């Protein structure tokens, strides 16, 4: 493998990349936003959620785990792919219990922000209304499993950034769920300042007693749509 920078195209636009970068990483650096949910820039990519799926050299591929390669042809922002992404988002809404109207994360939530981005108003799938618990045993943090989308960001962050392995998964398919090492949060090594807490993209792992201090309407994705921090880099990224 050479260390030479190379070029590939995304929706016809040439993108420069360096060896070892994934398609998402190269696009992020170039100011092209590929929608994603389980991907987090500080965490090893896992390709769980498939929201980042692009057509790469003619095949549907998760862009967050796909290494970029010279001459690759990537389709990203197309009506067909965005329709599929929207379907994925709608399924995630229907699988959990998401009442954005009173959720602490509303306006800061990546799932909701993707819903906005794809013009979703309510899921077109039947709600499963699963029975899911709230674990509030920890003095400073609580988990509302109703809103977990099983993205594994907390699992990876706890392991790789916090060095703790507080979180894991159990079960398969529709029964898969997040678990806490030790049983309940108060029996785990979790601290409120852990990166695992901040890594959660939705309102599932939440710091206690701070809810709603920032008014709805003045939050991250109220100010600018998701991905606009990335697209803002376009043009300014060249040295």
């Amino acid at each position, binding site marked *: 493998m050479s260390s030479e920078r190379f070029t590939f195209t995304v929706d016809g636009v040439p993108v420069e990349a360096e060896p070892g970068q994934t398609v998402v990483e190269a696009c992020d650096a170039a100011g092209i*936003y590929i*929608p994603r949910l389980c991907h987090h820039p500080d965490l090893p990519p896992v390709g769980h959620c498939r929201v980042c799926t692009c057509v790469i050299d003619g095949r549907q591929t998760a862009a967050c785990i796909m290494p970029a390669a010279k001459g690759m042809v990537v389709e990203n*922002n197309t*009506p067909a792919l*965005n*329709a599929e*992404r*929207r379907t994925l988002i709608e399924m995630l*809404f229907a699988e959990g219990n*998401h*009442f*954005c*109207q*009173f959720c*602490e994360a509303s306006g800061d939530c990546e799932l*909701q922000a993707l*819903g*906005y*981005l*794809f*013009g*979703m*108003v*309510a*899921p077109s799938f039947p*709600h499963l209304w699963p029975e899911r618990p*709230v674990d*509030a*045993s920890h003095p400073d943090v*609580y988990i509302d499993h109703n809103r977990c989308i099983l993205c594994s960001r907390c699992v990876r962050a706890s392991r790789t950034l916090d060095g703790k392995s507080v979180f894991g998964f159990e079960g398969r398919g529709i029964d898969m769920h997040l678990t806490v090492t030790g049983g309940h949060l108060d029996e785990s090594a979790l601290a409120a300042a852990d990166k695992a807490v901040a890594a959660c993209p939705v309102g599932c792992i939440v710091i*206690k*007693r701070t*809810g*709603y*201090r*920032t*008014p*709805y*309407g003045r939050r991250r994705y*109220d100010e*600018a*749509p*998701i*991905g*606009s921090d990335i697209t803002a880099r376009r043009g300014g990224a060249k040295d």
Partner: protein
Amino acid sequence: MSSTDGTTAPRKIVIDPVTRVEGHGKVTIRLDAAGAVEDARFHVVEFRGFERFIQGRMYWEVPLVIQRLCGICPVSHHLAAAKAMDQIAGVDRVPPTADKMRRLMHYGQVLQSNALHIFHLASPDLLFGFDAPPEKRNIIAVLERYPEIGKWAIFIRKFGQEVIKATGGRKIHPTSAIPGGVNQNLAIADRDALRARVGEIISWCTAALEHHKGYVAANRVLHESFATFPSAFMSITGEGGVMDLYDGTLRVIDAEGKALIDGASPASYRDHLIEEVRSWSYLKFPHLRGFGGDDGWYRVGPLAQINCCSAIDTPLAEAARRDFMAVGGGHPVNATLAYHWARLIVLVHCAEKIEQLLFDDDLQGTDLRAEGTRREEGIAWIEAPRGTLIHHYTVDKNDQVRSANLIVSTTHNNEAMNRAVKQVAQTDLSGKEITEGLLNHIEVAIRAFDPCLSCATHALGQMPLIVTLEDASGAVIAREVRQ
């Protein structure tokens, strides 16, 4: 079409936790062996499940969650829950900016709710007569025949909603009251926009009040007799018995005006009230402890708010209160239709209060929230548009709600609404036929109480009703449905 430019997409995702029972008001009239009206029941099936839904939620979520469950007066629930959660957070006194922001929001809510009721729901009955056909008794007909009243209807309500939006962030479901205070102050631009219009709003509210007094003068006998009965009244009052819709102590007076309870604090509500359960109704029957279910019942709402207070601290509403009380000659006014008159006085009061607050610089303060030492129990009340609203919560050491008990205004009026329907039935039922006139009068009697039920709050006015007539053995002898 999907787009990822983020500019055209709607920013709204709506999934509702409860499917609300949209339905008919159901009334059963029971005859005795001699064929006379023995009893009447107004069945309410709507208040189910919200206390359970709240269990296990984090306490700071409750002010937002609760208003989604009980949908008719969300602002009042938001504020009552926030006040209860102040106590859970160990805060007895929120900073002045927070107190005044919440008050302003509350006056906006009572203004818009009373306006909705007076103009959209009640005025068609009053302007066209109770026996006008239902298709003619609605707000559309009012807009056509009385454009001036139509203008009041639209703009007073809209103004109230804008006050809610400016203070609460949203015009129907505000989100700004949090345990210990609020999360925003009043923006100067919003303040100035509201200031510019409040004078006109006050003048329209007083014009509506004068107009209504004209109606009362022209229909004195009907006004005093329709569905009327003596009762006790209950309301929160402020210091010295002065009207305070946002906070205060409880006062209950009997039909003669004698205080049965005065100065009671929220924490003592269970010393004073018993919530009786009856098999045929989901709605409880609260009554005063020590008086029994037959004698201990009372009315709440605008009529009680005016009857119970000793004075109002805004000049136009106080003058109107004195006029009103003169009708009772020193006693509480008992006429059921006087609810509307009282509602208009409260409307004027709210408009005046809004004006006062808009000129109070505390609303631009930046000390928004206080903190304290966590407690396990929070009890609070507020005078909602329809009357006293009580919220009672316990919260465990993990910050999760252990129990919730809500007594909503309509619950307090449960017995009174049944009595009003019974009264109408006794007057209007002859023989065994449910006439159009009886249906109309039942509708008007229930409406006076402005119950927070979906059947009674259709913005277009019509109340879907099912009235059943039973003989002494309980067999159905007649049934009428009005859509």
